[in-house]
């Protein structure tokens, strides 16, 4: 790829992506072959395919990448990762771009950050995920129309005993919270 592979990379964005992604340094070996976009089940919905995103990262186009919908369209299927001839951890880079977009207030094109926050807030409170709590809080505030359309399905799920209306709480939720708080403090991010 267009990255300067000798010495420090000129693109600060590239340096940041590498620092934020385990094995992220492999991104500089991108051949621009496009196997990633071609393998992606949702590539047609992305503003830019992963191949293009990697070229943009090398070109330091931080704003364009972080405000794009690309990483939010990633469904974490790992086809790109599995097929990349250069062993680039593409799905993990998409996670890294999601984190950076949230931290920098650039995640504008998706409800995915709201879903993620609702999900993890409930985990931090109870220690377990709580499907009904996620659906009711997240859909009510973010997708009320969708909640209406899903209500029939929700009723069927309830009738089949597949929708618990109360959360399960683990015994040592305080221990989990202590671990999370420490991790958050060490990461210096929310």
């Amino acid at each position, binding site marked *: 790829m267009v990255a300067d592979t000798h010495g420090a990379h000129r693109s600060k964005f590239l340096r940041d992506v590498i620092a*934020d992604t*385990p094995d992220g340094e492999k991104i500089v070996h991108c051949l621009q072959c496009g196997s990633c976009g071609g393998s992606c*089940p*949702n590539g047609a*919905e992305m503003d830019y395919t992963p191949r293009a995103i990697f070229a943009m990262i090398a070109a330091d186009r931080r704003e364009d990448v972080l405000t794009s919908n690309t990483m*939010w*369209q990633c*469904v*974490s*299927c*790992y*086809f790109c*990762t*599995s*097929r990349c001839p250069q062993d680039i951890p593409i*799905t993990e880079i998409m996670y890294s771009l*999601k*984190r950076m977009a*949230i931290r920098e207030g650039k995640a504008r094109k*998706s*409800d*995915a*950050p709201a*879903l*993620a*926050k609702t*999900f*993890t807030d409930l*985990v931090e409170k109870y*220690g*377990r995920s*709580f*499907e009904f709590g996620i*659906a009711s809080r997240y859909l009510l505030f973010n*997708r009320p129309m969708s909640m209406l*359309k*899903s209500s*029939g*399905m929700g009723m*069927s*799920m309830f009738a*089949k*005993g*597949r*929708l*618990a209306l109360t959360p*399960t709480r683990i*015994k040592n939720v305080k*221990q*989990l919270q*202590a*671990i*999370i*708080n*420490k*991790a*958050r403090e*060490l*990461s210096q*991010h929310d």
Partner: protein
Amino acid sequence: MKYAYYPGCSLEAGSAAYDKSVRAVLDQLGVELDELNDWNCCGATEYFSQNELVATSVIARNLALVDSEHDQLVAPCAACFLNLKKTDKLLAEHPAMKCQVDAALAAGGLSYKPGRVHVRHLLDILYTDVGPEAIKAKVVQPLSGLRVAPYYGCQIVRPLNGFDNPEYPMKLDEMFEWLGAEVVDYPVKAHCCGGHMTQISEPEAFELIRRLLQSADEYKADVILCMCPMCQLNLDAYQGRVNGHFGTSFKLPIVFFTQLLGVALGIDMKKLGFGKELVSAEPVIRSKLDGSSVGAGT
């Protein structure tokens, strides 16, 4: 054979049929499952989208809770399996991250040494450890006449599976051949169900679900076999809405592979969680398998 068992949150409510059938089948096969004491949610994909250190620390708590009696942890859910396995690998390969996760675990009075727990998927346990001879010996209701479409999804076979092919997996196909079923070889068996996209952008999620249902339908499957709660939810619970969206009329029962394995082993269908799926599976199973004796077992 004895394993620590990590059911995961979905198996407590939405996918209780999976948990029920896993326990019934492994009991019948003489495999001991000891549920991990006080396990917490693996965070699915949602923590990794926000904070990687919190994501790995939350998952590492589960690895740290595995007691000295066990060195293998079995997870039936795709996301749980990948998260537990990925975290163990990250901690082994990235000393700086391990140092921070160690400090986070220590705040909860816990510690974990990477590699101490071997994270395994349920299919691997059944295919590799129990194996064909032991399973075939216990079949009392061969599945002959039933066309099953094994569906692997994503995160069990990619990227860290280690026991099957990430592009064209075969282990579930082979297992159902042992059981006498007609296994449908269809091209999308390891494609994506859309994951959490049903909660974010329905048209895109519905398209991914449609591709799977259509392919299995074109290959004349009677049922689709799932290994992941999210796959089962998307294909089963959203099938009606997908039909509404595309004007299709799919009516494909979506069951967990352990439910149908249990039928072959002669376990009572009620003990296997049948009846919880929105597209009913019992009629087609009974009609194809000489209904008189199906599910009347132990």
